[in-house]
C-alpha cells in the first residue's frame, strides 16, 4: 500500500515549471520470494528536497539502487526528466542527469582529490575513453573539477590522495564529484554516516547550499533528523519496503502511523 500526499503549503516544493523531474510509479523489486521494495509511487518536482527516512531494512538504499539502476526493478517505472529509464543502465541514467553517493564512503582512495573530481567531469563532458587524449591541467574537465572542489572547500587538498582525507572530507569530496557531473537529480545515501559531530554542521551547510544556490533536486537518506528537518521540503517514510508517508516535515512528524513505525519517542 502506497500513501502519497501532495506537498503541503508550509514548505512548498520549488516549482521548475512543467512536469516532475523524477516520477516513480509502482516501483517494485522482489528477489526470490522476498519483496525488497513494494509498489512505491511518488513525483519529485524540479528543485525539490526530499528526505527519505525509515528504520534499518526499510528499503531506503534499495530504493536508491532501483532509481540509479544498480538493482533491476521487477515492476513499475522510473521516469527521469520525461524519459523512461526503468531498464536503462546506471551509466545511462547518470548521463541523463541522475547522480548519487553511496552509504559507505566511495571515493577513489588511490587517486588524488583532483583526479577523483576530474574523472566525474570527464564523464559529463565526454571523451573519457579516448586513450590518445592526454590529461591537461588547463582543459575544461580540470576547470570543472577545480570549481567543484572550491564549492565544497577542498581546493587546497586537490593534490592529496583521496584516501588520506578525513571521513568528513571524503563526504565533501563525494559531493564535489557529484557536482562535477552536474546532475539534475542528486541521491545522497546517508552522507552524514560516520561523520564527526563537528563536521556535520559544515557538511549540512554544503548540501543546503548545493540545493538552494544551484537548484539541484535532492533525495537524501539520513538518520540525523535534525539535519533533515532543516533541509527537506518533504519527507518520505519507508517501512517494510513500502512508502508509508510522503508529506511536509511537520505533517510527517505529527503522523501517528509514522511515529509508530519509525520515529517513536524521538520526536
Amino acid at each position: 500500500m502506497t500513501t502519497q500526499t501532495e506537498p503541503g503549503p508550509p514548505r512548498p516544493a520549488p516549482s521548475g515549471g512543467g512536469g516532475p523531474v523524477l516520477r516513480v510509479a509502482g516501483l517494485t523489486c522482489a528477489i526470490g520470494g522476498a519483496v525488497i521494495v513494494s509498489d512505491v509511487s511518488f513525483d519529485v518536482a524540479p528543485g525539490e528536497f526530499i528526505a527519505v527516512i525509515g528504520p534499518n531494512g526499510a528499503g531506503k538504499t534499495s530504493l536508491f539502487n532501483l532509481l540509479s539502476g544498480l538493482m533491476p526493478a521487477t515492476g513499475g517505472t522510473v521516469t527521469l526528466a520525461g524519459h523512461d529509464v526503468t531498464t536503462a543502465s546506471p551509466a545511462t541514467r547518470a548521463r541523463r542527469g541522475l547522480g548519487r553517493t553511496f552509504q559507505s564512503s566511495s571515493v577513489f582512495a588511490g587517486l588524488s582529490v583532483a583526479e577523483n573530481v576530474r574523472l566525474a567531469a570527464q564523464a559529463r563532458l565526454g571523451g573519457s575513453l579516448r586513450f590518445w587524449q592526454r590529461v591537461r591541467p588547463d582543459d575544461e574537465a580540470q576547470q570543472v573539477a577545480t570549481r567543484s572542489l572550491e564549492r565544497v572547500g577542498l581546493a587546497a587538498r586537490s593534490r592529496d590522495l583521496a584516501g588520506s582525507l578525513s571521513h568528513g572530507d571524503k563526504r565533501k569530496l563525494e559531493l564535489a564529484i557529484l557536482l562535477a557531473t552536474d546532475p539534475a537529480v542528486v541521491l545522497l545515501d546517508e552522507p552524514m554516516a560516520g561523520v564527526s559531530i563537528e563536521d556535520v554542521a559544515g557538511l549540512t551547510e554544503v548540501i543546503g547550499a548545493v540545493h538552494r544556490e544551484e537548484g539541484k533536486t535532492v533525495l537524501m537518506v539520513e538518520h540525523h533528523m535534525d539535519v533533515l528537518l532543516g533541509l527537506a521540503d518533504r519527507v518520505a517514510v519507508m517501512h517494510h519496503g513500502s512508502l508509508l508517508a510522503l508529506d511536509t516535515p511537520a505533517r510527517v512528524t505529527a503522523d501517528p502511523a509514522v511515529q509508530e513505525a519509525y520515529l517513536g519517542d524521538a520526536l
Partner: protein
Amino acid sequence: MSTIVLLTVTGLGLAALYFLVASGLSLIFGLMGVLNFAHGAFLTVGAYGTWWAAGHLPGAGSTGWSFVLAVVFGVAVGTAVAALVELALIRPLYERHIEQVLVTVGLSLAMVALVRAIWGADARPFPRPEWAQRTTSLLGANVPNDRFLLIGTAVVVLVAVLVLLRSTRIGLVIRAGVENRTMVTALGIDVRKAFTLVFAVGGAFAALAGSLGGVYLGSISPGQGTSLLIFAFIVVVIGGMSSITGTAVAAVLVGLVQQYANYYAASGVGDLSVVLLLAVVLLTRPSGLSAKVA
C-alpha cells in the same frame, strides 16, 4: 664475472617475457576481476600468427623489416582474437566468476587443440632474424642479442603502459575502475568499453610475448602459451594482482631467481625456487609487492 653477466641478462630476458604476458593479465584482473586462463591462448595465436606470416604473408619474412611485419601481423591477430573473446564470451559473464573461469579454461584447452589439429603437436622452428642470432660482448660475456630485444621491448611496453595509465583520460578511468567499477559506472562512464580495450591490449602484449618468445626459444609449440602462463600468474600474484609496476618488479625477481637457481643448483630447481619465492612473498606481504596500479 662473464657468467654472472650472462645469467643476469638472460634472467632479465626471461623476466621481459614474463612481464609481457603478466602485464595484460594484471590489467585484466585489476579492472575486470577476470582471471583469464585463456591468456596463454593469445600468446599461442601471436606466435603462430607471426610464424605463419613469415612464411606466407607477402612482404613478411625472417629478416629486418619483413620480420617486423610478421610480428605486427601476429600481434594484430592476437589482439583481434582477444577483443572477440571479450565481446563474445567474457562480456555476457561479467560478475559471474566461476563461469568466467570455466569458459577461459575451456577456451585455452580448445585453442591448443585447434592449433595442434592444424599445425601438429611437434615444435616448429621459429624464424629468427639474423641479428637476434648473433651475440654482443658485454663485460666479457657474449650475450645473445635476442635478450636485448626482449628487454628493450618490455621496457618500451612498461613505459607506454605507465604513460597510458598516468597521463591519459582512459588511464584515469582504468585506475579508477580497478578501485571501484560500480562508482565509475555510476558516474556515467561506460566501463564496458574500457574492459574491451584493456582485454585487447592485454591480448596484444601476450601475442607480442608469443612472437618474441619464439625468437628467444627458437621454436614454438601449441602448449607454449600454457606453460608460460603459469609463471605469468605467479608474477601477477607476487606483483600485487593489479599493479603494473609491481608486476614489472616481480617479473625481474622471478626471471633472475629462476636463472640463478637453475645454474647454481640444478636444472629444474629454478621452477621450484619461483614457487618458494611466491610462498615467501604471500606469507610476508599477502597482498603482493605493490597495491598501486601505476
